[in-house]
C-alpha cells in the first residue's frame, strides 16, 4: 500500500495528577492514551471503538493537536506534527479537520450558519478569497444537503440532524484530506443517523477523504469502516480489517464487546450465547499491571498480570484470524453467535 497519510507511533498522553495546594507535587497520572500506533491511508476509514474512558476522544484531541502529546509521534505525510506550533501548525491543521459529537454545543448559537461555516476562511484566507466566501459557503450547504438559502439562519432553527450537517460542512470548508469524526451520529435519532452516515460515505467518495471514525456503536463502525481498531484503557488491543475484527476477533475484550451488542432481531434470542463481563473499567490513573483487561477477563492467568501483551500478529493463528491482537492467548472464539 502507498505511504500512509497519517501515522501514529507510540503515542502517549498522560494527564498529571497533583496533590497539595501550596507545594504541588505530582502524585501520578491519568494514562488516557498509553502507547498507541496505527496508520491511516488515503481514502480509507479507520474506525476506533471502545467504551467510555478508553481514551478514544483523547486520541482524537492529540491528533488534532488540541492536546499536546506526552510522548510519541504523529506523522502527517511523513512529517511529525505533534511538536509543531505557530504558522507551521496552522498550515498542517488545514488538512486535518474534525466533526464533533454534539451538534447542540459545538455550534455557536449567536453566529449565523454562514458565519460558522465561513469562519475557517478567516484563519486560512488563501482557501477562499473574501469576495467568494458567501458563494463557497452556499456551495458547502448544497454539498451537505441543506438549502443554500439557509445561510443567514441560526443553529437553533435547525434539527439535530441538520446541525450535524452544518458541522460537517464546517469540517469540509478548508478542503481537508483527513476528517476525524468523534461520535458524529450518537446524538441523533435512529431515522436520521442513516442519512448522516450516507452523507459521510458520499463525501468520502467525492472528495477522496480519509476518515478516522470514533464511535461506541459497533454496528455503525462496521458499516462505515475499512479497518477497525479496538481500544481499552488507553491501549489498542486489536486492529484489523472489518471482517477480521467482526468475524474473527481474537482478543477476549473484542469478543465480549461484540457479544454484548443487542442484535435487532428477536429470532433465537433465548439461545444466544453472551459474554457478560463482570465489574467496571478500572481507573486509568491506576491501571492493572500487565494486561489491562485481565481484571475482567475469563482467560487471565498468572502471566497476564506480570507481562504486558504487545500488539502483534499471533504466530500460531492463520487465515483471517492472523491480525494484530494484544493478548497472550489470542484465539478465535469457538461458538460464534449469530
Amino acid at each position, binding site marked *: 500500500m502507498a505511504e500512509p497519510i497519517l501515522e501514529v507511533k507510540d503515542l502517549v498522553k498522560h494527564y498529571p495528577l497533583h496533590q497539595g495546594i501550596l507545594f504541588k507535587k505530582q502524585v501520578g497520572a491519568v494514562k488516557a492514551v498509553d502507547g498507541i500506533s496505527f496508520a491511516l491511508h488515503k481514502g480509507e476509514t479507520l474506525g476506533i471503538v471502545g467504551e467510555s474512558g478508553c481514551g478514544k476522544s483523547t486520541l482524537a484531541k492529540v491528533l488534532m493537536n488540541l492536546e499536546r502529546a506526552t510522548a510519541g509521534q504523529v506523522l502527517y505525510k511523513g512529517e511529525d506534527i505533534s511538536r509543531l506550533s505557530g504558522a507551521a501548525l496552522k498550515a498542517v491543521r488545514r488538512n486535518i479537520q474534525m466533526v464533533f459529537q454534539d451538534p447542540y454545543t459545538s455550534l455557536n448559537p449567536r453566529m449565523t450558519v454562514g458565519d460558522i461555516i465561513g469562519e475557517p476562511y478567516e484563519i486560512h484566507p488563501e482557501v477562499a478569497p473574501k469576495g467568494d466566501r458567501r458563494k463557497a459557503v452556499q456551495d458547502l450547504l448544497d454539498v451537505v444537503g441543506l438549502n443554500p438559502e439557509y445561510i443567514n439562519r441560526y443553529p437553533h432553527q435547525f434539527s439535530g440532524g441538520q446541525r450535524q450537517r452544518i458541522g460537517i460542512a464546517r469540517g469540509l470548508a478548508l478542503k481537508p484530506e483527513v476528517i476525524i469524526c468523534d461520535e458524529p451520529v450518537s446524538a441523533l435519532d435512529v431515522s436520521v443517523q442513516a442519512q448522516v452516515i450516507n452523507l459521510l460515505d458520499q463525501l468520502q467518495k467525492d472528495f477522496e477523504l480519509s476518515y478516522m471514525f470514533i464511535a461506541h456503536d459497533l454496528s455503525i463502525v462496521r458499516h462505515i469502516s475499512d479497518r477497525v481498531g479496538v481500544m481499552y484503557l488507553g491501549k489498542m488491543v486489536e486492529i484489523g480489517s472489518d471482517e477480521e475484527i467482526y468475524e474473527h476477533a481474537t482478543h477476549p475484550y473484542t469478543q465480549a464487546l461484540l457479544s454484548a451488542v443487542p442484535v435487532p*432481531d428477536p429470532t433465537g434470542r433465548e439461545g444466544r450465547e453472551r459474554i457478560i463481563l463482570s465489574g467496571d473499567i478500572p481507573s486509568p490513573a491506576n491501571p492493572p499491571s500487565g494486561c489491562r483487561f485481565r481484571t475482567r477477563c475469563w482467560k487471565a492467568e498468572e502471566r497476564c498480570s506480570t507481562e504486558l501483551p504487545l500488539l502483534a500478529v499471533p504466530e500460531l493463528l492463520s487465515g483471517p484470524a492472523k491480525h494484530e491482537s494484544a493478548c497472550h492467548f489470542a484465539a478465535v472464539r469457538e461458538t460464534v453467535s449469530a
Partner: protein
Amino acid sequence: MTTALETTPKAKERLVPGTPLLEVRDLHVEFKTRDGIAKAVNGVNYSVAAGETLAVLGESGSGKSVTAQTIMGILDMPPGRVTAGEILYRGQDMLKMSGEERRKIRGRKIAMIFQDALSSLNPVLSVGYQLGEMFRVHEGASKKEAKAKAIELMDRVRIPAAAQRVGDYPHQFSGGMRQRIMIAMALALQPDLIIADEPTTALDVTVQAQVMDLLAELQAEYHMGLILITHDLGVVADVADKIAVMYAGRIVETAPVHDLYASPAHPYTKGLLRSIPRLDQKGEELYAIKGLPPNLYKVPAGCAFNPRCDVATDLCRTEIPALHQVTDRDGAELAGRKSACHLWKETLHG
C-alpha cells in the same frame, strides 16, 4: 373503597403472571407554551400485564416519555395538560384519583427508573439514606431498619461490598452501579409495575448487558410488569414480549416482538428496521427514511408520517388512519397486531 390499594407491606401477595395491571386508554396530553399548543400525545392505547414486558419504541418527540410521566403522575402541569383519556391501574382510573390516593400507588405499586442516574439521585445524600427513605416514608421503618433494608437491596442488585458502600455518595459510584441503585430504589417496595425510561442509554454496551440481565432476572423472580421505553431496536429485540411503536404522539403499530421484526405492518417501522446498520453484515448504502421528525406544533395533516413515507397516497395526506386490526392473507385476525396505516395490507403482504 380500594381493597387492592390497602397498605399491608408485610403480607405482599405474589403477582400471578398474566394479571392485567395497567391500561392506557385514548390518552391525550398537550403542552401550552409561548409558541402555541404542542400535542405531545394524541390518543395512546396500551396495556401491560404482570410478568409481561411492553417495549414502547419511538424517537425523541414521539411522546413515549410524556405518556410514562403521565402514568406516574409526575408530568409538570402546567404547561402539560391531560385533555382526554383514562389510565386504569387494576381497573381504576388514576386520573380521577386524589393526590393522596395517587401517592399511595406511586413508588409502591408503580415505580420508575430514569435514564440519567446521576441527575436523578440527590448528590448530597448517601445512597443508603436515599434507598432507606423509601422504607422510612412509606413503611415507617426506623433509621436502623431502613439502613439494613438498603444494604439488602444493594446486595440484591449485586453491588459489591454493599455493607461498606451504603454510606457512599452517588458520585463515588460508576455509571453502571448508579443505574443499579436506581433499579434498587424502584424495587424497594416490590411494585407491580416498573416503568424504565431509557434505562441503559447512558451506559456502555458491556455494562448495558449487565443491567438488562439484572432487570430480566428480577422480573422473572417477582413477575412484575415492565414498560421499557427506548429508541434502541436492539435492546427491544432482546427483552420485549410486545411492542408499541410511537410516532408524533400516536401509536402507529403494536405487535408481539417476533412478528414486528419479521413482518412490520407500518412503513415507519419497516423504514426503521431497514435503516439500522447490522453487526453481522456490511451492507452498501443504508436505507434512510427521508425528511425529519415532525414539529409537534404543526403535525402534518392526515397521517403524521406521510411526508416521509415512500408509499403515501392522497388519502394519507387528508385522513388520519385508525389503528386497524391486522389480519393475515385469509382475513384471520393476528393476535395483538394493529397498524395505523391506510396501506397496512400492502405493507404487510406486499
